[in-house]
């Protein structure tokens, strides 16, 4: 059976490129090196929820049609619309996004990608403050302090810690995996002792702690790679940490500013900040200042809550301050595998990373006005094209409601929630499995995606479908001009 090596996984922004796939009779039968999401995607991409025929809504029901007819209908909807939204793009290739932007310009619509409900606030902040960053390779080899803030890579980027941070074996920094295993064994031992004491001697529970409380974790000043997690919940990632700071919901901004004061050796006149005793914060601030190379990864815990973009302002400023004392970098944990690519391509072609409005004939960018959720909440759009995304499932109900009312074109391999609302549904090939392309990793490194199997008969990649729709729209417009 042929084994394809060095396949890039098209799931999350980590873009692990060491996946090995075993192919049998044109199907993937075994996945090596992948995480649970990677396996689910490579083994389940051809499941019963796959759409295999283009569909059009007739009398309220989706009915099968030809590809030509579906493309013609999609082109008609977009050509007739005054203010269509073109949304998605982070689960497809840069090449498809590029055609999408051309299409948006042609129809005078708003093109937005999923970063608007993800790291959009981070981008706004980076434009204001700037970002000291680097590639993941540098972090893997050199970083001796890792901070995850409002991010749970154990669930969202399962191999991030193993490939790029604490548990990766770097050239100059060793993996902290062994230390973690020892810690877990010690924990299990403690638990056993505790239950034995409970059963044999005492009737009431003993006072020995089984949680990874700051008092129990290995000393923050120990040598080697250290992991700090700051989050509102004790996530799995938090359990791996040398130090976990549990911040109260919506209080990240206060905590970030407190850290900024502490690393400037200022005294805080309070006992607690965001529910955390100041003495713990002092320990964490000490660890940050005394590292050789620190990396702060932040997730949607910062962008989606409380001060939103101002949280990121504070985080970027904290890292800027830390760079006066040591070397520190900061990086957003990008979710979808090519959301970074969608931002990059959009910036090349329009000057702006997301929420680009072509309604005046030239690109305008004003998130809050030209961002898709706001356009939908104001009920301004009169058609929508959704590519490789599921906004009906992921947008707040009020925004999704207007989207479902619009004539809706969906290009997606799966029958997702948005596809069920579609007026025109065009199935596409999975980029990174059935179609090649380029994607950008969260550190802005472009990585090629492989085509490892053939798509089902008659199924085209997103890029080709979009090209055909664009050509059809130009035909319609020419006819209109001639008339």
């Amino acid at each position, binding site marked *: 059976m042929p084994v394809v090596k060095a396949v890039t996984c098209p799931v999350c922004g980590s873009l692990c490129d060491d996946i090995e796939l075993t192919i049998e009779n044109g199907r993937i039968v075994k996945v090596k090196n992948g995480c649970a999401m990677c396996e689910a995607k490579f083994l*389940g991409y051809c499941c*019963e929820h796959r759409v295999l025929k283009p569909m059009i809504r007739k009398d309220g029901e989706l009915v099968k049609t030809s590809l030509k007819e579906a493309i013609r209908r999609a082109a008609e909807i977009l050509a007739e619309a005054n203010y269509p939204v073109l949304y998605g793009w982070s689960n497809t290739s840069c090449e498809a996004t590029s055609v999408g932007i051309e299409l948006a310009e042609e129809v005078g619509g708003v093109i937005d990608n999923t970063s608007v409900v993800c790291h959009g606030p981070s981008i706004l902040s980076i434009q204001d403050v700037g970002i000291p960053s680097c590639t993941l390779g540098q972090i893997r080899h050199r970083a001796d302090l890792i901070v995850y803030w409002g991010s*749970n890579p154990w669930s969202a980027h399962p191999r991030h810690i193993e490939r790029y941070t604490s548990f990766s074996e770097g050239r100059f920094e060793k993996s902290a995996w062994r230390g973690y295993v020892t810690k877990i064994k010690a924990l299990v031992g403690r638990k056993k002792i505790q239950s034995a004491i409970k059963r044999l001697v005492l009737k009431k529970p003993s006072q020995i702690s089984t949680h990874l409380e700051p008092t129990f974790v290995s000393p923050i000043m120990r040598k080697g790679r250290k992991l700090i997690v700051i989050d509102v919940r004790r996530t799995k990632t938090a359990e791996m940490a040398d130090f976990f700071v549990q911040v109260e*919901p919506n209080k990240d901004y206060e905590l970030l500013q407190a850290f900024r004061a502490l690393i400037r050796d200022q005294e805080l006149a309070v006992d607690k900040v965001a529910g955390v005793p100041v003495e713990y914060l002092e320990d964490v601030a000490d660890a940050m200042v005394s590292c050789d190379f620190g990396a702060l990864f932040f997730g*949607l815990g910062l962008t*989606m*809550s409380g001060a939103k973009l101002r949280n990121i302002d504070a985080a970027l400023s904290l890292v800027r301050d830390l760079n006066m004392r040591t070397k520190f970098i900061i990086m957003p944990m990008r979710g979808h595998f090519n959301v970074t690519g969608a931002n990059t391509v959009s910036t090349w072609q329009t000057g702006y990373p997301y929420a680009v409005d072509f309604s005046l004939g030239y690109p305008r960018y004003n998130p809050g006005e030209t961002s898709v959720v706001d356009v939908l909440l104001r009920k301004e759009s009169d058609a929508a094209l959704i590519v490789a995304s599921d906004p009906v499932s992921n947008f707040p109900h009020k925004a999704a409601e207007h989207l479902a009312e619009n004539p809706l074109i969906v290009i997606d391999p799966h029958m997702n929630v948005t596809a069920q609302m579609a007026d025109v549904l065009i199935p596409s090939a999975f980029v990174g499995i059935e179609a090649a392309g380029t994607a950008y990793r969260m550190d802005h490194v472009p990585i090629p995606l492989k085509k490892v199997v053939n798509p089902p008969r008659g199924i085209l990649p997103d890029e080709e479908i979009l090209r055909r729709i664009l050509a059809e729209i130009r035909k319609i417009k020419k006819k209109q001009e001639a008339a």
Partner: protein
Amino acid sequence: MGEKPKLRVTLLTGRTIEQGVGKEHGKSSKEYVESVSVCYMDPEDMKKLGVKDKTNIQVSTAFGSVVVKAQKSLRAPHPSVIFIPYGPWANVIVDPETHGIGMPSFKGIPATVEPAPEKPVLGLKELLELQFRKG
């Protein structure tokens, strides 16, 4: 019979590995639906409300109300904080306000929780029909 107990909480929504795997199986798959129509609660809060693991609760915010299954959080203690994975159920009750920057509030939303043993958790199809009258 007194009034039903109600608990004021802060709602967080986010990614779980089960949701991540479920979405790759397909949005109509059983794995996906089961992974996102739940609400992780602190066991102490569940005691206060008198709800048991895997029983139905109604979560309400200023923006809507939805019935989901309560599940004991393995990530406790997080008193007065509840967690619902991203998905169609969470989106009924998240805050659409973007504060002028395009980003709705998906985390840190004031909410109330009450037991709802007599109300069913809607399936994906019913939920969509109720909300969008399409699909």
